[in-house]
């Protein structure tokens, strides 16, 4: 409490001094306002913009390698003209193919769905929804963005190296990633990858520590923990997971750098290349996998929790009902967070680790289905008997729930070590994780962008374009990833450059063409969203102060967005954020958090 007051005063002074300057506001230059800004709203927009650029790059890569998988026997001189170093005789090189899938995974998992998703919404929403003037440390917050940018520049530069970008898969398992003689991408490309990821982790930690301290210390008067919107709860736990797991990735990466450059043998032992024994002894490639997945698994919850939080909030607002089981939602996030730390080895059932461990990790892994099921049933119950407004945000939130169900259920297959003996690393896995974590998280992100766009830019996004975007993305995602279940059940391994070399895997030529065609359409469909985004920023309908009639605090702060978020005093909170349709006799079906409780409501024991 002490801290809150002090920080408040500090920021108040800051705001007041601005006030005294009055007309001098314009002295803030373009650079200080939009580039080196310390304002959380601007930093959020920076994360979003950079994330969208990365999504175009990462998505574009998938188009390129889908062209190879769809038409393995045809040549594409046009593509060779553009990407000359990756193509030979009109065909994508295997080395370039493996670089592309590696970079696609790295970019989508880390740069888009971790940094940009958390970075955008934690920044925009945490201070506004808890009633704070800014983050606990605006400077750390800005640094978080700049380290993200730096990591991205290094990662992007690696695409132009003569030996190619890293190509050992986004999981960079050694010895493949450690020995350049086994794969050209493991030369300088891998060095760039490793350095970029270290900076990336710095960015994540600066951001995460900041989000945690902001949520704990800077809530406004009356904003108890159990009055926080579920978005904040989700972003809070996401930050905790990140702070606890990302440092392990650094240790994992540093040991790999040692093995690559200093002749150590942490991950290497008994390696023979071309009949020559290499001087490594005593290490274990499996150690790397343990360290990698100790981050790598919590990472998927880092990706999905913010989406879950936003979807919970958006479904409540747009169905005009309280989220069903508010506390159950919080405890299920907590359950996922805790269990998420003790399931990492389910990626390693068949890695060569002791089979006994496989049984332990099966137990914990399938347990995680319980909090996930609770969340799904609670979302469904939230919609039940609601008065659902179908808007772009709610449409994408519903799409998220559909994707999460589809992908979550196949998790019960893969989490069971015995079934994993058949399905590990087949296309079934590709289908599973793209649906449950890739597409679902993107749907959460889109829902969030459509919902909070008026909060960020003071204008509404266009509905028609959003409908087109939804239809293309939702139908397209199922057309792309659903059939991959069948391809995987037919035994086809993932990360194959061509399916024609082994006859048992060659039967899905037509299906692969179809998937590739739909991939191109879905990729182009995302530009409908981008056009909508840019167009609405300047020409969209002006937003009203509270366009969705929501209860949370961000809609009480002036919609045009001011430094310090609220004129004068910070708002006081009197109730939880989900009083939708609480009073059946009233014409107004929402009661903002700032409205004091009536005498009657005080007697009512639930949810103050």
């Amino acid at each position, binding site marked *: 409490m002490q801290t809150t007051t002090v920080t408040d005063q500090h920021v108040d002074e800051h705001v007041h001094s601005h006030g005294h300057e009055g007309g001098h506001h314009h002295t803030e230059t373009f650079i200080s306002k939009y580039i080196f800004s310390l304002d959380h709203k601007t930093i959020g927009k920076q994360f979003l913009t950079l994330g969208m650029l990365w999504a175009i790059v990462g998505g574009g890569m998938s188009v390129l390698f889908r062209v190879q998988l769809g038409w393995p026997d045809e040549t594409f001189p046009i593509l060779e003209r553009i990407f000359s170093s990756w193509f030979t005789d009109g065909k994508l090189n295997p080395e370039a193919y493996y670089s592309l899938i590696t970079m696609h995974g790295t970019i989508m998992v880390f740069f888009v769905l971790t940094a940009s998703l958390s970075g955008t919404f934690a920044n925009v929403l945490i201070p506004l929804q808890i009633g704070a003037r800014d983050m606990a440390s605006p400077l750390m917050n800005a640094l978080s963005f700049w380290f993200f940018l730096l990591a991205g520049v290094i990662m992007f530069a690696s695409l132009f190296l003569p030996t190619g970008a890293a190509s050992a898969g986004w999981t960079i398992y050694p010895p493949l990633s450690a020995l350049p003689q*086994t794969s050209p991408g493991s030369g300088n490309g891998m060095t760039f990858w490793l350095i970029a990821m270290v900076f990336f982790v710095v960015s994540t930690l600066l951001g995460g520590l900041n989000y945690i301290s902001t949520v704990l210390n800077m809530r406004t008067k009356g904003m108890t923990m159990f009055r926080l919107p579920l978005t904040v709860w989700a972003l809070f736990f996401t930050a905790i997971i990140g702070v606890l797991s990302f440092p392990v990735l650094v240790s994992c990466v540093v040991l790999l750098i040692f093995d690559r450059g200093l002749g150590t043998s942490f991950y290497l032992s008994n390696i023979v290349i071309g009949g*020559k024994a290499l001087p490594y002894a005593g290490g274990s*490639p499996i150690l790397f996998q343990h360290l990698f997945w100790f981050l790598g698994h919590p990472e998927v919850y880092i990706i999905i929790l913010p989406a879950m939080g936003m979807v919970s909030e958006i479904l409540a607002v747009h169905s005009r009902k309280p989220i*069903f089981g508010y506390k159950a939602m919080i405890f299920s996030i907590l359950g996922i967070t805790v269990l998420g730390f003790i399931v990492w080895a389910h990626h390693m059932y068949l890695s060569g680790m002791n089979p006994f461990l496989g049984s332990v990790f099966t137990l914990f892994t399938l347990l995680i289905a319980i909090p996930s099921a609770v969340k799904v049933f609670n979302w469904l119950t939230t919609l039940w008997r609601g008065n659902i407004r179908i808007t772009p945000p709610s449409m994408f939130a519903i799409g998220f729930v*559909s994707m999460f169900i589809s992908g979550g259920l*196949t998790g019960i297959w893969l989490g069971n070590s015995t079934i994993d003996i058949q399905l590990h690393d087949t296309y079934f896995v590709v289908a599973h994780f793209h649906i449950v974590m890739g597409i679902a998280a993107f749907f959460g992100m889109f829902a969030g962008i459509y919902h909070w766009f008026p909060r960020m830019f003071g204008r509404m996004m266009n509905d028609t374009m959003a409908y087109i975007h939804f239809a293309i993305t939702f139908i397209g995602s199922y057309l792309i990833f659903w059939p991959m279940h069948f391809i995987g059940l037919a035994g086809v391994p993932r990360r194959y450059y061509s399916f024609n070399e*082994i006859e048992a895997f060659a039967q899905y030529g037509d299906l692969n063409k179809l998937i590739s065609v739909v991939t191109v359409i879905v990729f182009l469909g995302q530009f*409908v969203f981008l056009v*909508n985004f840019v167009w609405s920023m300047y020409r969209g309908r002006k937003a009203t102060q509270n366009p969705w009639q929501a209860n949370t605090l961000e809609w009480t702060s002036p919609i045009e967005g001011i430094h310090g978020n609220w004129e004068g005093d910070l708002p006081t909170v009197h109730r939880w954020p989900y009083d939708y349709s609480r009073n*059946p006799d009233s014409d107004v079906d929402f009661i903002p958090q700032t409205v004091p409780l009536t005498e009657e409501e005080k007697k009512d024991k639930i949810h103050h």
Partner: protein
Amino acid sequence: MAIILGLLTLVLLYIVIVQISKASDLIKSLRSGDEQGESFGNGALFTSAIGFAVLIYSLVTCYVYAPTLLPKPASEQGVWINDLLNATLLLTGVVFVITQFLLFWFVYKYHYRKDRKAYFFADNNKLEVAWTVVPAIVLTFLIGFGIQKWFKIFSPAPKEAVLIEVTGKQYAWVVRYAGADRALGKRDFSLVNPDNELGINWNDATSHDDFLADEIVLPVNKPVSFNVGALDVIHNFWLPHFRLMMSAVPGVPTHLWFRPTVTTEEMKRETKNPNFEYVVACNKLCGSGHYNMKKTVKVVTQEEYEKWFSEQKSYYYSVVKPSEGNASDTAKVKVVAMADKDKVAK
């Protein structure tokens, strides 16, 4: 030219979309609040129609693609895995249909109407307990059966098992069979050289009757045990038709045993494919040739297996020390040099 035309078409398409969309914005700003409510309703029909279309698509494709999946499991262990997989399919399939149906049904049924009031329903402990406990019970069964089979599959191989060593390297599998003594000769990393990349210790007499095979031949209904390893990077020994796999890790020996139950000939009849063959493929990214690392597997009757086995030539006597066998002189020279190297290495 084609690129420019293509891009131009795309840009025009986006412009058309923006123009149409602008109209919808205009209409929206002219509408009164009541009429806006109607547009929320249209969205509901749109969304749930898409949802149901996708639900139907997902079920129909199951039916369409089922015949293209793997034929019946060709090993005892594969049958256990397949049974558990089918049970899981049934359970998750039912949950999938019910939840997706409810989701898109609610979207339509409870879509916005001006005269509708949402039902304030914030909590219900009974419901929460129900959908915590029911999945927990169902999952307990899946975990129980799963772990039981898991331990059976990774139990020690029976003593009578045929002993085979497979070693992955970029981009091939080296297959070594234990000879008549049913023991594989020891390997020593310090003995590795270009002529002996496995580092087989020829001083170990059990190595002398071992042989290298071009394809993996297995007797039906007999346990076969694989010592799996790799020379350079991680590979994965994937036997899709037997439903089994195991990583091949440099420096970390792994094991897999199973009992094949269907011969190649039987499977040819079963699949009505005269060219059918069992394969091993690599299932862990191992470099640019990862997609082409195949080995043929043949499952044969006991008699055929014994015949094949008796025809194999010991690697030691045919290549390493042909003087003790009946190979040519050139091989002999090479081997003598190698034996000397081995001594030096020692």
